[in-house]
């Protein structure tokens, strides 16, 4: 089975060492984490992680179950197959001269991104969107010379359903 990109959402207790436990499990089972984001959830004391990693369906399911066993994880869902909203934020510092500045600003406008800093020889662009949008903008800006890129990694949420991955969880429960 071919490895594909998976998006997992983990609700975990907000305690020291939890991020280490989660990340360590991916390392232990031989997964490369493409991105991991952590922040507060809607409930006090519970953090929400979005993890993007490559793997086959069965191996990702294995990691999901291992994560589920951690005492401090509340719920782990693979939402790859779900209808979902994904966003990422990036700051991109692009080389610019008086000659190219106008063109860059035009591109940034088309992408509904913002210029957040201007210097004599560079512009810093703030962009939010899904992965395709990020990559397209980066491709275009490459032509001008990119000095620095800082990406937050993806955050994701299923559409309309309150509990992410509920449907796939139910299926798993009935299988077992």
């Amino acid at each position, binding site marked *: 089975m071919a490895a594909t990109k998976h998006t997992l959402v983990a609700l975990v*207790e907000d305690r020291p060492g939890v991020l280490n436990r989660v990340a*360590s499990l991916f390392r*232990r089972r031989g997964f490369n984490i493409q991105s991991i984001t952590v922040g507060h959830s809607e409930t006090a004391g519970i953090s929400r992680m979005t993890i993007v990693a490559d793997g086959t369906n069965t191996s990702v399911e294995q990691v999901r*179950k*291992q994560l589920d*066993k*951690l*005492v*401090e994880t509340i719920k782990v869902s693979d939402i790859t197959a779900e209808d979902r909203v994904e966003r990422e934020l990036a700051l991109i510092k692009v080389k610019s001269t008086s000659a190219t500045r106008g063109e860059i600003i035009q591109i940034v406008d088309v992408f509904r991104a913002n210029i957040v800093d201007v210097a004599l020889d560079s512009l810093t662009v703030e962009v939010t969107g899904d992965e395709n949008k990020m990559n397209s903008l980066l491709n275009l800006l490459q032509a001008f010379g990119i000095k620095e890129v800082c990406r937050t990694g993806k955050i994701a949420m299923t559409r309309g359903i309150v509990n992410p991955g509920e449907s796939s969880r139910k299926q798993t429960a009935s299988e*077992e």
Partner: protein
Amino acid sequence: MKMTGGQIICDCLVKEGVDTIYGILGGAILPLYDTLPQFPQLHHILVRHEQCAAHAAEGYARATGKVGVCFATSGPGATNLVTGIANAYLDSTAMVAITGQVARRFIGKDAFQEIDITGITLPITKHNYLVRDGAQLAKVMKEAFYIARTGRPGPVLIDVPKDVFTEQVEYHSPGKVDLPNFKPTMKGHPAQIQKAAKMINEARKPVIIAGRGVIISNASPELKELAEKSQIPVVTTLLGISSFPESHVLSYRWIGMHGMGYANMAVNNADLVIAIGMRFDDRATAEVSGFASHAKIIHIDIDPAEIGKNVPVDVPIVGDVKAVLGPLNKLVEAAQRGEWLKQLDDWRREHPSTDIRETSSILPQYVINQIYHNTNGDATIVTGVGQQQMWAAQHYTYNHPNTFISSGGLGTMGFGLPAAVGVKMGRPEGTVWLIDGDGSFQMTLHELATIQQEKLNIKIAIMNNGFLGMVRQWQELFHGKRYVATPLWGPDFVKLAEAYGIAAVKVRRKDEVIPAIQQAMSYDGPFLIDFGVEPEENVYPMVPPGASLSQFLEMPRKEEALWPQRSTL
């Protein structure tokens, strides 16, 4: 009531039913030891190396079904525990390890004997704690014991800074454990149990593979009921040995790399495998692509992460073995499987797997078989790791649940002697034999001191072949007989035992074997026998690496039987 951290820990241990603790003290854990005399219910056993504290705690836990407890100080004390904790993790043994840590103000400063033991043990514990607040101790202790023994058992480590042991805090005995996210599934899903029963009832050539989960769950009676009711042959994994009486007509003993040829053939020719409380370890399955390829698989295990991990499963049932087999047995219909059982009996005749050939030298197989006969099969056998472990599994017949105690998952040489300490303390009335190798024994032989100090009546049989024998066997078979670093000098084990005040005899002639075993049995106290055995004896059957379970090598019968000689199936 105000109490110190150390008093709280001890009081919690007593409340958890702990009576025996294995450990070694040091600076950071000294205040905890200082409170021990206030709790005479807690019997502390001083071992000679912290690794052995963990192994002894594991032996005690496995013999009694209780949670094993060990103590160590910070730094090297804690790191020495690591092998023992890993062993307990891989063999699913409930254990709580308490380590001293440097005082809170020194944490993170690379202070003397400071090590990040919670970081180090992260992947080998079910959970671990660094307690930075004495007020949390009671809750942490309660949780740790609950986590260690609930669901799939395993080790939990609690790291306690020195000044937390002495901190005066208000002590309230904690009520119920509140871990909303830790709720192992105990009962099997009824629909899945129904599906499994249907498959069993429809199967023509089913086989049960029983693992250590059956022993942990005390489910041997239920396993026997299932096998007898539906006339299903039973094989076990290495750690499942003794979960089903090996003299039973439906027992085909155990599978795996050195399992019985006929047991391996049974699995690979079955149309249904009922895997109970086992995890499809690679030593049990051999090459996984060829494992039970004609069979549908039912997998009963308490750990959902084991389902589908190594082998795809048709009907998974997550739950405690005992809780699943009860309702399953009700749905399983009585059956007759004469033809299938006859086939297995034929294979057993063709591939007897444990025949002992006539020699003038002492064969380790012969020694173990004699220990079996002279103990009437009633002893608990503890082993080291290596060839002797496999021979102990093959040539002793286990008819009582939980009488084979060995390091499976981690394969820890040196496990035997310290584990035997814990096993004997857990079963003071029972006969305990340690079957060890000269290599494995030399890794932890200092525990002879603990045995003598505690006056533990353990019988020790060393299969002394002057080699790290299992590795030598691999060098012989797969590395052109280049014996690199496997020839092993050893001390005079009899003199060594005597130096520890332990009675011992040396056996170098075959006719001395039985008298020596009888002498050990009748001696009131620990006794060591150094058996000089055939140096280059190999363990057979053997499934070579990369081969499937039924492609086992058998004992070459005559000189002309060239390796590799594989079974045709």
